[in-house]
Structures are given as C-alpha cells and as structure tokens.
C-alpha cells in the first residue's frame, strides 16, 4: 500500500441534511482531500454524476441523505438509495469496487455526524487503495 496515498473524496449532500459548507466545517485533514457538491435534494444525484466523479479521479464517493421518513421532498432519499445501489453494482461489474461508493443518512441536528462518516470512509478507502482508473 502506497504510504503517500491521500484519497480524494467527493461528497454529494443535500442542503437539508447538512446546511453548512462541508470543506470548511470539517477539520482539515492531512490524510485526504475533500470536495463537496451541494444539491437541493439528494435525489438529484444522477448515476452519471457519480461515475463522472470517479472519472475525474475520486477514490471514493459519499452520498449523504436525510434519514428515512425525513426527506423534505418525501421520496428523494429513497430514490437516491436505489440509484446508489444500482451504481455500486455497475462499479463491481467494471471491477472498480462498489465499496468506493457509499450512502449515509445524516441527521441535520448532528454536527459531528459528517466528520464521523468522512473519517470512516477515509480509512476504508485507504485499505482499498487508489482508484484503478484514476
């Protein structure tokens, strides 16, 4: 495993589950590079955006959604979940490893949740290694 591997992570999140600016709110880390994409609702995350994130060099992609039953637009988080499941399967089929993509419900009332999620994903992706198509 490369000692100097600093995973690039793209985070898609809706402004309802995390209203702030992710890059500045999360304590800056030396073990990874973060980029965030804000959406009005996580259901706006189309499969092609997730793939293009990998195409542009991301080693892992996180999608944060509102907890079940709490989507402001009712079904948005359910649609996002189905889409992420579909893309994970596609990533497995092309041998990029579906574990690089993950979905996380996050309660807007919990400011530390995002930090926790990103920390966990960083350690998981360090084990997986860099994006083989990066």
């Amino acid at each position, binding site marked *: 495993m490369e000692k100097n591997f600093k995973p690039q992570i793209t985070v898609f999140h809706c402004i309802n589950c995390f209203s702030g600016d992710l890059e500045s709110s999360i304590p800056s880390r030396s073990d990874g590079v973060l980029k965030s994409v804000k959406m009005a609702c996580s259901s706006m995350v189309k*499969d092609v955006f997730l*793939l*293009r994130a990998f*195409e542009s060099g991301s080693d892992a992609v996180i999608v944060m959604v509102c907890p079940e039953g709490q989507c402001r637009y009712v079904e948005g988080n359910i649609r996002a979940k189905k889409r992420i499941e579909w893309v994970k399967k*596609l990533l497995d089929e*092309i041998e990029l490893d579906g574990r690089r993509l993950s979905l996380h419900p996050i309660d807007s009332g919990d400011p530390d949740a995002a930090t926790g999620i990103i920390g966990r994903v960083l350690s998981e992706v360090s084990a997986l290694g860099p994006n083989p*198509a990066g």
Partner: protein
Amino acid sequence: MIVGEQKPIGEIKQILSPYKRVLVLGCGTCVKTCFAGGEDEVAVLSSALRLVFKKEGREITIEELTVERQCEDEFIREAAPAVSNNAAVLSLACGAGVQAIARRFIDVPVLPGVNTTFIGVLEKQGLFTEECLGCGDCKLAVFGGVCPVTRCSKKLLNGPCGGSRAGKCEVNPETDCAWQFIISRLEVLGQLDNLRKYNPPKDWRASHAGGPRKLVREDHII
C-alpha cells in the same frame, strides 16, 4: 413500444475491444422509455466504459450522441458527422434501429448495445410487459382484449391447459395465465359464449413464419 435491455457491460466491452474511437449512439424513443438506450443511458454507459478501459490501460475515446429515433432517415442523417468521426458505432437502439444505421453507414461497423426483446406496454412504474408478437391477424375481439397468442405460453386458441393453477402459468409462478384473464374478462363483458366456440388452427402466413415482412403503402409513394 419496443422493449429491450442494455447488454451486460462485460459483453459490450468485448464487442468494442477492436476499436479506439467509438460513438455511443442513443435513441430517444422506445429504448429511452425502457431505460435501455436513451440520452441518460448513453451518458452512464460511456462513463462506465471510459472508467473500465482506463483501468485496463486501454486507449479509447468515446463520443456520445442521441438522436430522436434511429429508425427514420430524418433523424439518422443528424448522426452522419459523428459517425464519420469514429471507427465504430455502438448503437443503443432496438434491433431495427441498429440495422437502419448499419445500412446507411456501410463503411463503419455498427454494433448492438441492447438486447431487443418484445412489443409491450409500461404497465406501471418500472414494469414492462410483453403484449403483442405481431402475428398479423389480430383476433383480440374474440378473446376479450387479451391475446392468447402472445400471453399464453403455449399460444393456445382453445385454452387453458391443465397447468393453469390459481391464475398462474405452469412455466413460471410469476407469469399470469392469459386464459384466466380471458375467462374473467369475457365474464365481465357477458361474452363467455365466445369460449364455447371452437377456434380453428391459426393461419400463420401473416406472421413472421411467412418470412420477413414488408408494408408498402402505394398511396404514400410519389
């Protein structure tokens, strides 16, 4: 509408392996509706192919284009510049579209990216069902609007068979017995007598069994 399913990406990879410049050509009509080959599917497939070829260290450029329909010249023409730019075309249209493109651009290999399956309807969100196999001699009036040729696994005209159980077909517990539907529908319509009548053997000449078919409308030809 025509229904089909995109081929597994492993197979598409295999089909594209000889080529370095590929046009992924989508179709905005039937295959868009069944999520097999519309603009969105072109984008996702192209992205996935770029990722997988990069991972394997293979050089390939993928161009993306979608036209309204691949079965009409008016729209096929729009693809001409893109086709001439590439070494091969992966068409995500139904089998008819793939062939129409192939014979208008004879110098370029035109490859299928979709397995075309049936003529059907969007029964409800995400569910497409086979309804018509184009027998050329429609008898839906006799059968209460339910087609036994397409929807009965044995094409029985004097059904049901002994394998019909709880409204399901013996072939698959998820397949409805068409004859159960026919009986129920004719009951509602008060036309159960239709079932007492003997239906003679079908004349298959109007179907594909008679050879590939053509429709010529002289009144539309100048």
